[in-house]
């Protein structure tokens, strides 16, 4: 049961991070927040008995996606006007 | 049979292989790329052929991994899928070939991979039998499309790609959610399995919502209004070749899945959904394109509209309450529509690729210098707009006639949209054919192939259509039509074409002689054949300057007219009617300044034809025989089509310029015979439809007024016309108004008058137009004030025109008088007092322009530049002579014409007693009066000769004086200009009737056009170009879909 409450907390954290990612003017921060959303998601997947997905999400969603975002932002610009 | 999995697996492996190959050799990569495409094409073709020939009887089911359907993924290839696969690979091959010739964008290997995978994705969407697999293939297609759309790497293409990407992602999210929910609800991802389960499953609102999430995603991909802003931007911004493949192949695959999913998921509101979104998209997009100046975006609107029509058809196809035969027709219509649109639109986009500029103005005159380009362009435009014999036409017919009567409004909507489509497509056509444009890049192989496929498809569709609708097309006519079109190949030598045409027509007369029976059909058949032969004969001398397609089109017109006259079913008549309209459009468009006129002609004739089609659709049966209908709508719709061809006011505004600017060789046919076939049609409507309805008399009275007002106003307008052909045009239209009046009277005498005048008008107006052609050929202008005094140069023509004018004015003893006498007798017998007065007045006004023609052309002072004009060339003179003799002969012996008409009328119930009998001294006697034509002729000619002899004997010595020597107070003026009174003869009279000749009708039509355009222009602002807004539309529409189509709570 405690685990479930923890999950709810994590989900709330995830939503909060997502809102931050969308609302912040700093694109780099936004991308990193989005990466954290994925990371939290992979923990959630673990709880949901999906270790494969958790692994994929961690590697691809949190890792690779964030990485290519960062590269793209470095090639373009960091601040949102 | 080729295992469909091979197509997909080998293509995929090849895509990977090209990825390797391109590192080492670009050439081999290219060769391999085409080998793969050809393999796909052949394999898909083999499957399709297998289904067509019946070798493959049941759908191919490929169990991937060897698991039975619900367990593993499977491919499901039935007839539709096989056809769609073949279509996809054909279009891709055409596009790829075009791209290769133009130059594949760098780096080539990557571009080829994208291209290959785009077609693969589309094929996967088509073949797959699994919903999640569908999603994967949708993503493959989409990503390949994003890359290819951006491939031009210009700002526009990147913007388009980005928009596509954003909306595409939202769409695929919806699809993914829908698929997963479906899995959750049914426990399966297999399409057939889900379909099976859905039947046993209680259809809760939640299930509807799940289907709707899926369909919302699909509808976004299917570019329905108003969530298609991205699609239009893609059409506008992307490389046209990519767009050609996208719209020709990828979108069609989405459409197929839309139908399939609609069938599998059994969404209760699917019909309403497709009706609203399909119909709305179709209609709105057709209008939004009106003022579009960017060619690519214009074609985009058109694509979206066509897709809307397809969605609409899908709704009907899947509606279980329709009879299965209707649904079968609709399925055929859908096949034809998809085929038609894919090839035509791809061909157009590939053509667009050859032209640098995006603006429509840049296309000005592009057809003139590029004959092959013109051929392809015309074919494609005609196909899309549904001109026979292209597949789009048959598809439209099949669809319309399969729609049940309670959805008649849908038919109205389809036809309205079709008219709008013709407005903007032919504006485009007009601009492209107007003037002399630049030569364009020649990369036309692929579009040429597409148009040839279209033409072939049209032929197949025709035979299919006649088979399915149970309509017999006279095969002889079709053979003649084909041979007529084939005369095109003699285009290098116009005399040869002319001879061949005459021979063909002569043979036609010989073959159809048995059909010229004494009935309405035979009567008009004879008119068409013999009239057509005379007029065709007269085209010889000027033929050198004609275009290659003049004689083919001319003959197609004539044989379509034959088809119309011999039709026994309304639908049959309609087909030939459209054929005639469009071939005559081509002919009108050959005039140098006729582009605008031809455009308006196209709009009016197609609007009329569609109105007629709507009427035919509403008829309870299709055969031309007594039909019990109620209500005034059907006859009005039917007759509107015919009235357009007769140019009855207020549908006349096309006539002046179409007659005036069309090639001089063609105008006689247009006025002399084509307007008469409108009379034929109206006669049929009067006879078989109006005669049986309760409000028939009121309708006839209204039509009589229409006829007489046309006669009056057109005559009035002719009086003030300064162009010979336009004057004759107004005159012609006015005279046809009398014919309508005669028909509307609907008494034996009235029909006598109408039919008599039909032939008679052909004789004298044909003569006048033929003579006009000759005069214009010699003088070089049709502007009346630049003529004058030609009587000395062309005495024979003068005599012919004089007699024709006497006949036209209805002065006895020439043939024209009989028509007038019959008409007035009929009117007075019918006691329509006011109409009689207006008719009389109109014919009085006709004297004004009659004099004008004779004076400004032949009399007065000979202009200096016409000093060397000679008599008209021999064939024209011969035709004039024939018609002249006919006028005089019928003037003296009107029974030459009245007796056949009598025979015709005797066949018609209610017209048995033609209302005339003949007596030795009194001549023709009606209930009211009598007139002896022979006596009048003998009397007039006899007195004339007597007086002439007497005069010649008794008169003083006659001294002929020079041209300028007139009794001008002893002065002999030096200049012709001082003396010739040829401009604005009736200035004084115009001041009186200024308020009557105010161009109200054309202003109204123009206003409708302008206001619709403005409205469309304002509505188009809806597509703001802002991707945020587009996304908001998508969300809003999805909400609406989820809310309104889910069914019960």
């Amino acid at each position, binding site marked *: 049961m405690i685990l479930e409450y923890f999950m709810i907390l994590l989900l709330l954290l995830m939503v909060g991070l997502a809102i931050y990612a969308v609302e912040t003017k700093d694109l780099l921060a936004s991308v990193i927040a989005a990466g954290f959303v994925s990371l939290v998601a992979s923990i959630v997947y673990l709880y949901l008995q999906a270790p*494969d997905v958790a*692994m994929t999400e961690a*590697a*691809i969603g949190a890792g690779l996606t964030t*990485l*290519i975002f960062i*590269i793209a932002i*470095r*090639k*373009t*610009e960091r601040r949102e006007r | 049979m080729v*295992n469909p*999995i091979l197509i997909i*697996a*080998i293509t*995929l*492996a090849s895509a*990977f*292989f090209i*990825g*390797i190959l391109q*590192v080492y050799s670009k050439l081999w990569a290219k060769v391999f790329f085409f080998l793969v495409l050809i393999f796909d094409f052949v394999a898909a073709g083999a499957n399709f052929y297998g289904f067509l020939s019946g070798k493959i009887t049941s759908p191919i089911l*490929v169990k*991937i*991994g*060897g698991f039975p359907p*619900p*367990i*593993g*993924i499977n491919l499901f290839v039935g007839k539709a899928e096989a056809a769609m696969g073949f279509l996809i690979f054909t279009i891709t091959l055409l596009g790829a070939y075009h791209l290769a010739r133009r130059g594949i964008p*760098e*780096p080539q290997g*990557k571009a080829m*991979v*994208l291209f290959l*995978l785009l077609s*693969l994705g589309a094929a996967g969407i088509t073949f797959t039998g699994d919903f999640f*697999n569908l999603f*994967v293939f949708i*993503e*493959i297609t989409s*990503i*390949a499309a994003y*890359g290819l759309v*951006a491939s031009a*790497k210009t700002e526009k293409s990147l913007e388009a790609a980005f928009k596509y990407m954003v909306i595409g992602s939202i769409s695929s999210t919806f699809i993914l959610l829908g698929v997963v929910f479906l899995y959750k*609800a049914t*426990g*399966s991802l*297999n399409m057939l*399995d889900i379909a099976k389960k859905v039947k*046993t*499953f209680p259809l809760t609102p939640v299930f509807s*919502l*799940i289907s709707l*999430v899926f369909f919302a995603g699909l509808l976004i991909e299917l570019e329905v209004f108003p969530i298609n802003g991205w699609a239009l931007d893609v059409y506008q911004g992307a490389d046209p070749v990519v767009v050609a493949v996208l719209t020709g192949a990828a979108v069609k695959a989405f459409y197929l899945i839309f139908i399939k999913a609609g069938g599998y998921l059994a969404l209760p509101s699917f019909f309403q959904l497709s009706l609203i979104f399909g119909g709305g998209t179709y209609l709105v997009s057709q209008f939004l394109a009106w003022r579009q100046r960017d060619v690519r975006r214009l074609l985009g609107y058109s694509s979206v509209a066509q897709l809307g029509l397809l969605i609409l058809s899908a709704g009907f196809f899947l509606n279980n309450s329709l009879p299965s035969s209707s649904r079968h027709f609709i399925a055929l219509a859908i096949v034809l529509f998809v085929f038609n649109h894919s090839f035509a639109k791809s061909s157009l986009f590939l053509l667009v690729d050859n032209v640098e500029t995006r603006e429509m103005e840049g296309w000005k005159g592009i057809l003139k210098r590029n004959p092959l380009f013109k051929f392809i362009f015309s074919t494609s435009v005609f196909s899309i707009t549904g001109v026979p014999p292209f597949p789009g036409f048959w598809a439209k017919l099949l669809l319309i006639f399969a729609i049940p009567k309670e959805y008649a409004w849908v038919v109205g909507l389809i036809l309205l949209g079709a008219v709008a489509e013709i407005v903007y497509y032919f504006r485009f056509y007009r601009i492209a054919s107007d003037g002399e444009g630049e030569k364009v890049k020649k990369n036309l192989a692929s579009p040429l192939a597409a148009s040839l496929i279209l033409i072939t498809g049209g032929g197949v569709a025709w035979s299919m259509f006649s088979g399915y609708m149970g309509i017999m097309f006279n095969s002889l006519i079709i053979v003649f039509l084909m041979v007529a079109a084939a005369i095109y190949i003699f285009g290098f030598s116009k005399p040869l074409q002319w001879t061949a045409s005459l021979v063909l027509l002569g043979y036609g007369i010989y073959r159809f002689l048995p059909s010229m029976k004494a009935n309405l059909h035979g009567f008009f058949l004879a008119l068409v054949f013999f009239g057509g032969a005379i007029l065709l004969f007269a085209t010889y001398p000027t033929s050198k300057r004609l275009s290659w397609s003049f004689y083919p089109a001319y003959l197609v017109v004539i044989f379509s007219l034959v088809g119309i006259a011999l039709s026994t079913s309304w639908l049959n008549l309609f087909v030939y009617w459209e054929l005639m309209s469009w071939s005559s459009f081509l002919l009108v468009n050959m005039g140098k300044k006729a582009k605008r006129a031809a455009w308006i002609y196209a709009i009016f004739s197609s609007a009329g034809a569609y109105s007629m089609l709507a009427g035919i659709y509403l008829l309870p049966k299709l055969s031309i025989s007594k039909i019990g209908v109620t209500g005034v709508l059907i006859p009005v719709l039917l007759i509107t089509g015919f009235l357009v061809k007769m140019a009855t006011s207020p549908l006349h505004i096309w006539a002046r310029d179409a007659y005036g600017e069309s090639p001089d060789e063609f105008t006689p046919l247009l006025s002399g015979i084509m307007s008469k076939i409108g009379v034929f049609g109206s006669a049929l409507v009067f006879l078989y439809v109006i005669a049986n309805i309760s409000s028939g008399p009121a309708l006839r009275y209204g039509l009589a007024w229409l006829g007489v007002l046309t006669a009056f106003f057109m005559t009035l307008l002719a009086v003030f016309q300064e162009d010979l052909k336009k004057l004759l045009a107004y005159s012609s239209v006015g005279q046809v108004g009398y014919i309508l009046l005669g028909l509307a009277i609907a008494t034996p005498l009235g029909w006598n008058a109408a039919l008599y005048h039909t032939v008679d008008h052909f004789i004298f107006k044909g003569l006048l137009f033929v003579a006009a052609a000759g005069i214009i050929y010699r003088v070089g202008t049709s502007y009346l004030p630049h003529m004058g005094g030609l009587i000395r140069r062309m005495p024979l023509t003068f005599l012919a025109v004089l007699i024709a004018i006497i006949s036209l004015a209805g002065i006895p003893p020439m043939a024209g008088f009989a028509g007038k006498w019959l008409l007035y007798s009929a009117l007075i017998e019918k006691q329509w007092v006011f109409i009689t007065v207006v008719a009389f007045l109109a014919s009085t006004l006709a004297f004004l322009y009659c004099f004008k023609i004779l004076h400004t052309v032949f009399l007065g002072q000979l202009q200096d530049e016409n000093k060397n004009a000679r008599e008209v060339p021999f064939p024209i003179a011969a035709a004039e002579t024939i018609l002249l003799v006919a006028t005089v002969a019928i003037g003296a012996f009107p029974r030459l014409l009245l007796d056949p008409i009598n025979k015709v009328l005797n066949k018609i119930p209610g017209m048995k007693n033609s209302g005339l009998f003949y007596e030795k001294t009194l001549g023709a006697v009606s209930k009211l009066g009598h007139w002896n034509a022979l006596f009048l002729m003998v009397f007039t000619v006899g007195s004339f000769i007597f007086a002439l002899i007497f005069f010649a004997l008794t008169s003083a010595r006659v001294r002929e004086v020079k041209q300028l020597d007139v009794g001008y107070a002893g002065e002999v003026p030096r200049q012709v200009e001082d003396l010739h009174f040829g401009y604005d003869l009736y200035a004084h009279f115009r001041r009186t009737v200024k308020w009557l000749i105010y161009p109200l009708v054309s202003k109204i039509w123009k206003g409708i056009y302008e206001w619709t355009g403005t409205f469309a222009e304002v509505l188009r602002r809806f597509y703001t170009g802002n991707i*945020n807004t587009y996304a*908001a539309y998508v*969300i809003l529409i*999805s909400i609406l879909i989820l809310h309104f189509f889910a069914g019960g709570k």
Partner: protein
Amino acid sequence: MRKWIAITFLLILGFFMLRIAGAFPFGENTWKVARQYVKNVTEEKWWVAEHYVDKGIKENRGSNLVTSIVVNYRGFDTLGEVTVLFLAATALAFLLSSCTCFRKYERIEASLILKTASDTLYPLLILFGAYIFIHGHLTPGGGFQGGTVIASAVMLMLLAHFSFHPNHEVLSVTEGLAGIVFAAIGLAGLIWGRSFLANNILPLGHWNRLFSAGVIPLIYIAIGFKVGSELSGLITDMFKVTKEE
């Protein structure tokens, strides 16, 4: 204004989605629930997942059921998925190939710690990635995850060494060959086995062994190579486009 309209729209959309999702109670076995609705269940395997779960071991011998599904039952999806990734890499390379006009930015030389660490980690990471995809049919993870790990090794090197440049040719060929191998295994199934991608061309072996589950490990290895090289190439492509001085 725009904001609030958007929020309104989205909330309504959310309501509908929640309504749909709420029809399936969270954490409950809806397989059983749904069966009650069905009028006449004659088939035993109404729910495909039951087949996968109950027969998966018997049919494939792979202990990771997700892998069984991904590679065998729904192997065609995975072929598509690989294609999607390939496509994305191709599209990216295609689009960025001619583009040399990005914002300049200062390259800071990596610290010694990073350089040393990455030199050490590079082979280890690649090995780890290989381990993941080789054991895809036994443990969580597989070709995609392993491939990504390999790509991250490449990325580490890119960050650490200014001059590091993976051989593009090798990457392309690896990627292509891996893809072809996948398709070829599928076709081999068509030729020698039941059907395309059928898992009966190799002996299935025993449950929970490394050499088991027929072609599944082979496919996952191919996928691992493919994804690894693809993503490495992708990252390199993105990394290397810069303004040419």
